[in-house]
């Protein structure tokens, strides 16, 4: 990761995650040919890793896409899955909610923001914007 950069690491992650529980993970990236600050790359990778782990553990999804789109002053990370979804309002009560809350805190630390869109039965999308 430190050597190759964020994108190859995320691609490797998606490859490794594919096949587990019938899940297929794809990566769609744009404009990530330049490296980001090392600490930020690692932070972003860990966040994506955790979100993909969430999908494997909880979502019962067959398909997930990790979008990484560089908008020059910010990086947009969007992870969509076609799993069971959940009611985002119910989150804090569950342990999974703890995970997402910790991600939210880390995103905030980098002055970014996180949005969760999910509905029971209709998959989940996590959207993160982080200034770069």
């Amino acid at each position, binding site marked *: 990761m430190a050597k190759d950069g964020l994108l190859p690491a995320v691609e490797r992650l998606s490859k490794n995650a594919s096949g587990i529980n019938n899940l297929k993970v*794809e990566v*769609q*990236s*744009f*404009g*990530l*040919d330049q490296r980001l600050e090392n600490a930020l790359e690692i932070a972003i990778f860990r966040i994506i890793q955790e979100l993909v782990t969430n999908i494997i553990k909880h979502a019962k999804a067959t398909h997930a*896409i990790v*979008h990484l*789109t*560089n*908008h020059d002053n910010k990086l*947009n990370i*969007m992870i*969509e899955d076609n799993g069971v979804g959940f009611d985002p309002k119910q989150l804090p009560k569950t342990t999974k909610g703890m995970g997402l809350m910790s991600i939210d805190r880390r995103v905030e630390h980098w002055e970014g923001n996180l*949005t969760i*869109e*999910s*509905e029971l039965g*209709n*998959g989940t*999308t996590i*959207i993160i914007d982080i200034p770069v």
Partner: protein
Amino acid sequence: MIRVAIAEDHQSLIDGIKLFLEQEHDIEVVGTANDGEALLKLVKLKQPNVVITDIRMPKLDGIEATKCIKAILPHTQVLAFTMYDQKAAVKQMLEAGVSGYLLKNSPLDEVVKAVRAVYNGHRYYDANINIEAEDNSNTKSKGVLTKRQVEILRLVAQGKTSREIANELFIGIHTVDTHRKNMIKILGLHGKGELMRFAIEAKYKFLP
């Protein structure tokens, strides 16, 4: 004699090109077609040296038709003649096997030059498209849209708002908005208006 077939869904344009080409002593138009299937039949029957084809045509588009032509008659040269100047369309036609790519705003003189060039085994590209840039863009970004993004574009083309699109696709409105913003970036467009125009012109159909 260069034997040419023309495929184009606008008959008046075919008539114009045909009339013009037939003034050239070394060019003969052996047939014309208004859709991709008719083109394939024509090509099998007449085995032209050069095929001038539009991309967007009924039944079978120019991309698929070119692949078929190159498969059955590898020595037939195909020249794309189209209004689509965006990278994805050029790239797909090149991958399908065209030897030349000309935009429809070119003068007919250009068409004649292009026909002769591809007949002689050269490549011929419109000055207004950038072939070099194609190759670079390949390595940097996949530059493609996901199925979901294409679905969103289809609905954008129908004039639907992000909320309506969100409801229709059972996703969140922020997801739709983020896709729209990302697509504007990925496609190199400027603003929502351009994305909508892109969608309406259905250019996304030619993205891989």
